[in-house]
């Protein structure tokens, strides 16, 4: 079980969290302005990263808040967690 550092509550076991998919995908402000291809990209196209992946997590059974995390998909190690709206911090693999 992973240990995840909620930016609001601190380190907690994975059991308390829900995964939320890739981070930093903003919902278009005016979806109607997008053509079919761009809208499909927003709906369906996601990275399949081997390495550092920015992703959303929700501390569902804690503060219930969403936040973002940088996780190395090769090791499952979390390199950083940060609040919604913040930029992803610069990290290097340990």
């Amino acid at each position, binding site marked *: *079980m992973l240990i995840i550092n909620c930016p609001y509550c601190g380190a907690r076991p994975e059991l308390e969290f829900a995964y939320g998919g890739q981070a930093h995908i903003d919902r278009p402000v005016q979806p109607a302005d997008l053509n079919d291809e761009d809208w499909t990209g927003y709906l369906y196209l996601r990275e399949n990263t081997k390495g550092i992946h920015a992703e959303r997590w929700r501390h569902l059974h804690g503060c219930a808040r969403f936040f973002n995390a940088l996780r190395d998909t090769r090791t499952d190690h979390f390199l950083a967690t940060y609040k919604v709206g913040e930029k992803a911090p610069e990290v290097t693999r340990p």
Partner: protein
Amino acid sequence: MSKQFRIKGTGRVDPSRPINFTFDGKSYTGHQGDTLASALLANGVHLVGRSFKYHRPRGILGIGADEPNALVGIRRDAARYTPNLLATQVELYEGLNAVSQNRNPSLEHDRMEVNDKWLSRFIPAGFYYKTFMWPKSAWDKWYEPRIREAAGLGVAPSQPDPDVYTQRYAHCDVLVIGAGPAGLAAAKEAAATGARVILADDRPVMGGSLLAAADTNISGEGEDWYSAGAWRKEVLAFLEKQPNVTLLPRTIAFGYYPHNWIGLCEKLTDHLAVLARGAPRERLWQVRAAQVVIATGAIERPLVFPENDRPGIMLADAARTYLQEYGVAVGQKVAVVTAHDSGYRAAHELKAVGVDIAVIADIRGRSVVSDRAVQAGLNVLTEAKIEGTSGKLRVSSITMTAAGMRSNFACDAVLMAGGFTPSVHLFSQSRGKLVWDNKLQAYLPGDSAEAERSAGASRGRFALAEALADGVDAGREAAQAAGFTPGTPAFHPQVTVKHAIGSGGYLGAAPTSADLSKAKAFVDWQNDVTAKDIVLATREGFLSIEHVKRYTTTGMATDQGKLSNINALGIVSEATGRSIPQIGLTTFRTPYTPITFGTLAGHARGMLFDPARVTAINDWAVAQGAAFEDVGNWKRAHYFPKHGEDLHAAVNRECLGVRKSVGIFDASTLGKIEIVGPDAAEFMNRFFVNAWTKLGVGKCRYGVLLREDGFVTDDGVVGRVAKDRFHVTTTTGGAARVLGMMEDYLQTEWGDLKVWLTSTTEQWSVIAVQGPKAREVIAPLIEDLDVSAEAFPHMSIGDGKICGVPLRLMRVSFTGELGFEVNVPSGYGRMVWEAIWERGKAFDMVPYGTETMHVLRAEKGYIIVGQETDGTVTPDDAGLGWAIGKAKPDFVGKRSLQRPALTAPDRKQLVGLISSDGRTVLEEGAQIVDPAAPKVPIGHVTSSYYSAVLGKPIALALVRGGRQRLGESLYVPMPDSVIGVQVAPTVFFDPEGARVNV
């Protein structure tokens, strides 16, 4: 008989405490401290099992977790029977009752022996894939049952497990796995820094190889020297005294999981003769360690030569350990076959207690070690080829060739010394990278993925002095990495030994003049895989070790190839001319050794396996004799049978009761979310498809929710209870999902909105009162709210009082009848329900369950999300296009509804179906075909029931272009017949909706 194999004055067993036990019904005596294996060997018993495929007689091969042959069942009582235990790990207790497995009728006479003599040439590697191909139908009925009968492990227990299993979470700074020399040294060093240390070892007594060390001395920090045994005691005494140290004997570390999370299984009672009532049998430890020291030692390697599997043939260092730890000589006349100096050590130590050493056959050349053995009077052959063995139920001789001479040696035991394989299982599970060491001919731990380090033999430091020094360093480094400061300087003990472990080793099939394509030279004892099988697999084109493994099944038994994998690699390397690193390695998987389901389940059994959610009215329904169904975790009343009614009779009666007069239904499981804030209406506008701005306070609207991809994901009635407050209902199963989705948009997309969301599902009990008499039943109970038709029309919501308690009343209908949903704080739910029930008696009110609810709504064509929808249904498909707020610029899923595929004219649309014969109830999920183009189904039945009020079956279906097909005849092909149906509108009953608006 036992006397001659027990060597007095040797080992840690207690001869003054004899223990009686039985094996296959025969009585034996052992000593306190014995394992079942050591006690059997002390009684001269080697034959303990029959092999998996060929049913060859098999003896005890090893001494620990790597044992492939000696699998036994232990029976305590009718319910406590554990199959497939290793005799090498079963601790002896008074009255122990052990039985052998995979033999019929007995170990000595096994009918399936024909597999070995006559059938073996027909069952080579991969025979499952080659032999049982025809006829196909014979597989289920004939081949598989017979294969399962012939090739088997133990029998599963037939009764529920009566034992209790418990779990514990623990944190520590340094977890040391393995309490051999390296592990003890590491634990001692780490503990001395003040770090919290857990030391786990799978055996009942800690010390590992120190327990079997003979004529070995270890230096202390002063001038003093200790015997290996005294050093072990000294260190353990120190560790026991430390408040920061937890010692866990009988505890196997079975799995290494991400972020230094280690699974340990502690066995608590299996070694006891008498079980304390209710005492847990095993404890699962889930340890989160800052640093881990892996000191799991090494596994001895057998040699692959013809007929190397007869009882009496075993691992050399295992035999030596039986002597030094248990005072047991494994034979009277012993032959040693060796590729490693440790074979000589075993011979010297056995000779010292009077065991006759028939021969030492070294497949290597002459060396200092072999010369010393000759000087000691031992008969040594070098550059030996091993040709075969004989003996039926016990080895009686071994044949070898050396210096051109073929000779036969009588013996009652053969010891194999193929070298040692570092136990890198846990390291590999931690996703660390293994590196091939050419000098040691072994895979060793390389780069770490977790905060761990290996020490001692588990990383190739085999000699005692090296292992101790490595353990000291690992313990200090681990403590330091966890934030503690070791004292200075490090002290590495010196060691003197009479017979060193030495070096050497061999991988693959040992040299022989025998034809290995005919001989049975076993690589994997437990799965009966021979060198021949592995060569055959490479010849048939299997080059990847993963494929060889699956094709031959080598390494796939319960021992997971602890003994066999490395020799299999050696044979593939030889056969294909590629180096071992080129061939690769199969994956080391958890668990390291089998663990019980009980350990993993812990207390999560029966009612505690999965929590049941019940409403405030649940007990009333139970008392009424309701039948229940599970909806998620909820227990819901399915129907209320009377006088032995079946489901259909009860549902027909309940349906008619509601339509004729009035029914009462527990709708408390519906999801409920309260949406509050100045921007509540705007939030609703963005989230649901409907328009909410103009919905007046005190009014309800049917809401439809899409995912962003445009497909229906949930629905429910929403009431506006104030300008800034909405009472949202969801489906029973969708409550958590909808709230999560709302939070997602609110927190991550719509930070501009001032809205708060609260789940109120469990705060309200919801009592649906439905039917023409519904108002007459509830009106007299209500205060502070006018529920007359004029003041409180269909789709109204209002707060008041019922039976003197707070009430939120919704006038809604999922039945097509005049209906109310009485919401009261759930603490009052039962009281209000019973008050309504009492009043309803005068109106012949029926309680009804979810099945009747389903039928009544289907008669009205109301959809159920998840039944009429399957994640590919748009609002228009479901006939809900009217609900969409067309003027809104955006809502979740709106843009997707314009995608070409979602606007195609031949999409599946919801329609009604009437069976042409007027009596066949269609099967839900059945496919529908058009007689004009019958090859491709054009839809499927989503809901189907018998309608009592209409006196005929009705169904809802999704049919391609369905709304253009009203009146058409279609077919529903079933296995035994084809059913004709007519496409109809979705509303079967009261299409004008006159009954709702009264």
